[in-house]
């Protein structure tokens, strides 16, 4: 063979080994370390402990091997059909002349495997207390500035803006655009959370995206993202994916909405409702205030119109009746303000005069006291010959009791007299 030609067709003739060496050099230099996604087929684990398999997708396949030392440390079992990502060196297996991947790392990629890994992380973070209800912050009642962390191009941002403005047209919405899936998404979400989580920037943070596969939502299951959500000082409303999707970031958020639209509904009150509530409060306050005034005024007007004031000798008896009537009405709970009027009459006569609706004395009402200054409330408290002092609006007079007569005061009579009269305040005082 020594006389074999060195060249053929102008090309240097190689041995097969030389060819494979060239291809190996080319593969290792030009292709080098790769991460490849595919499905396992033809898995073989001979006695050597090395693991051999074919990595395939729909149209192509490549051989792969993982040496025993690494294969033994894999945290999950390889099996045919499992979707994985292989990280390794491309090289050539000379004896067969086929190229292969020498795997240094294999991670599961299939939904089942992802779910298992996710479940493990969920358990760990839950055990740490990251999802505890006690950590949840209440949403502000009226957040006028809202940070929206989502993709600037997706439907979510539009759903949120449209819904929020329809409810409350005068909001400050601050969009922090991020990639919500793919490489770099977790880092961008974490960065946006850090920027938005500032009371100078917003009152509440909405974090979300539209629906997608478990893999599409995976950025929201990245441990660092989940921790960033939990660490926010401002309340976070999450709306990641559809109703059925729950990511770990959803669990770490203070409130979880099922969709971006619902997140806006939960965060933003309806302006018209607030205005209505305010108007209702105002109307209730006005009604209550005018009822109070009327109650006081009509109690006193009623009193002033009583015959006792026209027939001085009956004054004391009627005063007593008045007191009893008042007591009965108090028991009925009809005249809580009346009690105040009564107490004021009893104890604060001078103060009464300074309160306009309670200027009782100028209405003709008087207060009668015994010589010790004690207000007389009963006909039984005086006897003929007793000296009493009557206080009018503009002064006093001293009087002597000529007769006193006790009158049976039916509670019904008193109540009828008060309630049956037109302009009585009994009905007005009842409230729902």
């Amino acid at each position, binding site marked *: 063979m020594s006389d074999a030609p060195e060249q053929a067709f102008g090309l240097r003739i190689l041995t097969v080994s030389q060819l494979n060496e060239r291809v190996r050099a080319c593969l290792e230099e030009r292709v080098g370390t790769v991460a490849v996604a595919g499905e396992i087929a033809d898995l073989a684990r001979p006695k050597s402990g090395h693991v051999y398999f074919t990595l395939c997708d729909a149209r192509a396949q490549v051989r792969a091997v993982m040496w025993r030392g690494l294969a033994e440390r894999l945290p999950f079992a390889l099996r045919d059909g499992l979707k994985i990502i292989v990280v390794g060196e491309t090289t050539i297996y000379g004896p067969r002349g086929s190229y292969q991947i020498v795997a240094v790392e294999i991670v599961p990629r299939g939904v089942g495997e992802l779910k298992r890994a996710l479940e493990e992380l969920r358990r760990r973070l839950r055990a740490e207390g990251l999802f505890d209800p006690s950590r949840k912050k209440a949403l502000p009642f*009226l957040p006028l500035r809202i940070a929206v962390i989502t993709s600037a191009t997706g439907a979510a941002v539009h759903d949120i803006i449209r819904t929020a403005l329809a409810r409350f047209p005068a909001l400050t919405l601050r969009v922090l655009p991020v990639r919500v899936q793919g490489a770099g998404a977790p880092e961008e979400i974490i960065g946006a959370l850090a920027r938005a989580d500032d009371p100078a920037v917003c009152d509440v943070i909405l974090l979300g995206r539209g629906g997608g596969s478990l893999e599409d939502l995976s950025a929201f299951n990245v441990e660092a993202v989940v921790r960033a959500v939990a660490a926010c000082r401002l309340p976070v409303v999450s709306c990641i994916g559809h109703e059925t999707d729950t990511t770990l970031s959803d669990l770490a958020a203070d409130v979880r909405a099922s969709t971006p639209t619902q997140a806006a509904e939960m965060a933003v009150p309806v302006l018209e409702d607030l205005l209505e509530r*305010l108007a209702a409060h105002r109307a209730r306050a006005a009604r209550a205030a005018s009822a109070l005034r009327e109650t006081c005024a009509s109690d006193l007007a009623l009193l002033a119109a009583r015959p006792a004031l026209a027939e001085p000798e009956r004054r004391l008896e009627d005063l007593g009746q008045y007191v009893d009537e008042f007591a009965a009405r108090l028991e009925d709970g009809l005249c809580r303000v009346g009690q*105040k009027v009564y107490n004021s009459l009893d104890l604060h006569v001078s103060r009464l005069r300074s309160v306009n609706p309670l200027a009782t004395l100028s209405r003709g009402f008087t207060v009668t006291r015994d010589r010790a200054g004690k207000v007389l409330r009963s006909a039984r408290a005086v006897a003929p010959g007793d000296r009493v002092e009557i206080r009018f609006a503009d002064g006093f007079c001293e009087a002597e009791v000529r007769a006193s007569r006790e009158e049976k005061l039916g509670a019904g009579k008193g109540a009828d007299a008060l309630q049956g009269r037109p302009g009585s305040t009994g009905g007005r005082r009842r409230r729902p």
Partner: protein
Amino acid sequence: MRFKEGLDRLEAVVGVLERGDCELEDALSAYEEGVRLYRRLLEILAGAERRIEELAGEKEGALLWKRFQGLRAREETTPDAETP
């Protein structure tokens, strides 16, 4: 004053008025407080402004915002067309 605090206070004041179990002077001052709260809360609502912004960058630690560009036409309305 936060809106919710004011609203809670207003609710309490109205409750006091409606129960009617206070001195008349107190009731009158409660009424006045209620009206003050009502005006203040309206001011908060009316003072809110519509802005839709997008993070444009950071300068010396401060966030820079620009007008959000991604809105479809139907979300675009004049800023104070719907403010109360």
